[in-house]
């Protein structure tokens, strides 16, 4: 398999060595079958380095942050704030103070929606204004905007999807207008793998003075993410999909915005001074981090970005691209298999959704599982995409830095078995 086109050679990218860092990949299921984990778009596995960082934090340094003069409190604070530095560097943020830790990408996106709902002019979203999203968003980038729209009276609009799984920007001037306050869209579709054309959308948004929020949950784990190059106003992503722990997410936002916009959750840590009558708030990022933060999880995310950076996001991207191209080719040879989303490997990430004749995805997933192959089936929290294509669900295989051509082969063999079983 080393002759795969585009696959980096072992000296450039030692996938076997990488796999050894991930204890779960040795897991054996269903009487002796080694797991083939192809559910990375749902969550990634964690390397030993991240687990060690968590354990070391708890065993050696655990304390609450920001409030103490004792040595543990200072160490914990330094580790927590050090993680912020690491994440800031990972996404090339102009300032560390622009990195807000949340519990997941969903909280990050709700945070943006609520900041704007409670903001003063010129940011305020109200009944005179419009919100723009797309039909290929994850529910976490749909429902917060539906709630905001219901609660403020703002109109919710969206871009449609073309037959081949791309954003339909043909009517961009009607969708994004002078009334648009915020455009929020995903950089990479979690169901179809589509990589969206950021520039065209940002250009139009800037023309009309709308803010732009990018959901990078499926991008941050897989490609070089440079918030300055993106030119967005907010970028959200989530730790557990990028070899980090559960319970930690990130919202990056432009400093002036974070200064001007109101807080969302109130409590300890986010205040400057409190009296019973009124309170003032700490500067960002703390203004948006109420209560004891996910300290260990931030430290774990710091270890995760260290891990990914040491390998190199460009190499991870190249590796995944080669795997994706190979998977598209082999899957494309299966009779009755229909891709939901782009049918080439260009401008798409390592997430592939498909249907298999009229075998229900639940059955596909179950029979694959019996063979030790973990894929996801369902609407993948992007039900409007299923509605768009008139299907109840898809089967989705998603790859990551540790995926191998051999795992693609296992998937293809598994699908053959599924076809015979229900044939």
């Amino acid at each position, binding site marked *: 398999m080393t002759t795969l086109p585009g696959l980096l050679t072992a000296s450039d990218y030692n996938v076997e060595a990488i796999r050894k860092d991930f204890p779960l990949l040795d897991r054996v299921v269903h009487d002796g079958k080694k797991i083939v984990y192809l559910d990375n778009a749902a969550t990634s596995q964690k390397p030993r380095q991240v687990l060690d960082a968590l354990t070391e934090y708890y065993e050696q340094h655990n304390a609450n942050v920001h409030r103490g003069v004792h040595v543990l409190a200072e160490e914990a604070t330094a580790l927590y704030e050090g993680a912020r530095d690491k994440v800031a560097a990972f996404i090339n943020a102009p300032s560390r103070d622009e990195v807000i830790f949340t519990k997941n990408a969903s909280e990050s996106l709700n945070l943006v929606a609520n900041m704007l709902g409670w903001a003063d002019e010129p940011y305020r979203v109200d009944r005179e204004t419009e919100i723009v999203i797309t039909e290929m968003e994850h529910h976490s980038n749909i429902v917060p905007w539906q709630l905001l729209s219901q609660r403020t009276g703002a109109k919710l609009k969206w871009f449609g999807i073309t037959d081949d799984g791309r954003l339909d920007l043909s009517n961009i001037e009607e969708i994004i207008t002078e009334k648009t306050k915020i455009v929020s869209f995903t950089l990479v579709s979690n169901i179809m793998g589509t990589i969206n054309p950021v520039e065209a959308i940002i250009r139009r948004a800037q023309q009309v003075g709308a803010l732009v929020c990018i959901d990078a949950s499926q991008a941050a784990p897989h490609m070089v993410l440079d918030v300055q190059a993106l030119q967005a106003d907010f970028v959200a992503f989530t730790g557990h999909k990028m070899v980090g722990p559960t319970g930690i997410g990130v919202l990056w936002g432009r400093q002036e915005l974070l200064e001007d916009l109101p807080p969302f959750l109130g409590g300890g840590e986010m205040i400057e001074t409190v009296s019973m009558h009124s309170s003032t708030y700490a500067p960002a990022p703390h203004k948006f981090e109420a209560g004891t933060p996910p300290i260990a999880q931030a430290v774990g995310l710091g270890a995760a970005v260290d891990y990914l950076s040491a390998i190199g996001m460009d190499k991870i991207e190249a590796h995944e691209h080669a795997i994706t191209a190979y998977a598209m080719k082999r899957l494309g040879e299966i009779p009755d298999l229909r891709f939901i989303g782009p049918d080439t490997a260009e401008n798409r990430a390592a997430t592939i959704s498909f249907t298999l004749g009229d075998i*229900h*995805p*639940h*059955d596909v997933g*179950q*029979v694959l599982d019996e063979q030790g192959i973990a894929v996801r*089936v*369902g*609407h993948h929290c992007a*039900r409007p995409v*299923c509605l768009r294509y008139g299907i*109840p*669900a898809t089967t989705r295989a998603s790859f990551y830095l540790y995926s191998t051509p051999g795992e693609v082969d296992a998937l293809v063999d598994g699908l053959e078995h599924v076809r015979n*079983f*229900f044939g």
Partner: protein
Amino acid sequence: MYQEVILDHYKHPHGRGLRDGDAEVHHVNPTCGDEITLRVKYDGDRIADISYEGQGCSISQASASVLNELLVGKELEDAQKIQAAFLELMQSKGKLEPDDAMEEILEDAVAFAGVSKYPARVKCALLSWMAWKDATAQALGESERKTA
């Protein structure tokens, strides 16, 4: 979990299609998108017909077929006993070994015992049964709460 009986019902469903009924319900399994529209027709306390249309996995389809086969023609009271037994089986997490008595009540439906080991699939198997319960409540004018 894919017993021959289940695959058979899946490939050759009983009583599929929507026919005249006293009440119609539409149930959805939000986690996987399985859907069923189901109608019941009562003749007094006797189930005259259960007709349905839906999309979903083999388990939910086969289960609707088994439901139709087992319940149509039964008195409500007997049907409720069957439904209760099926519910018990499905909630058993694979720990209930169907005995002869159970097999007598559940007939083909005992094939679903294996499904009960898979929490994510239990809802598929129960979808049509819950829909039937709901439709029955409506048809007979009771005000039971929906238990989707």
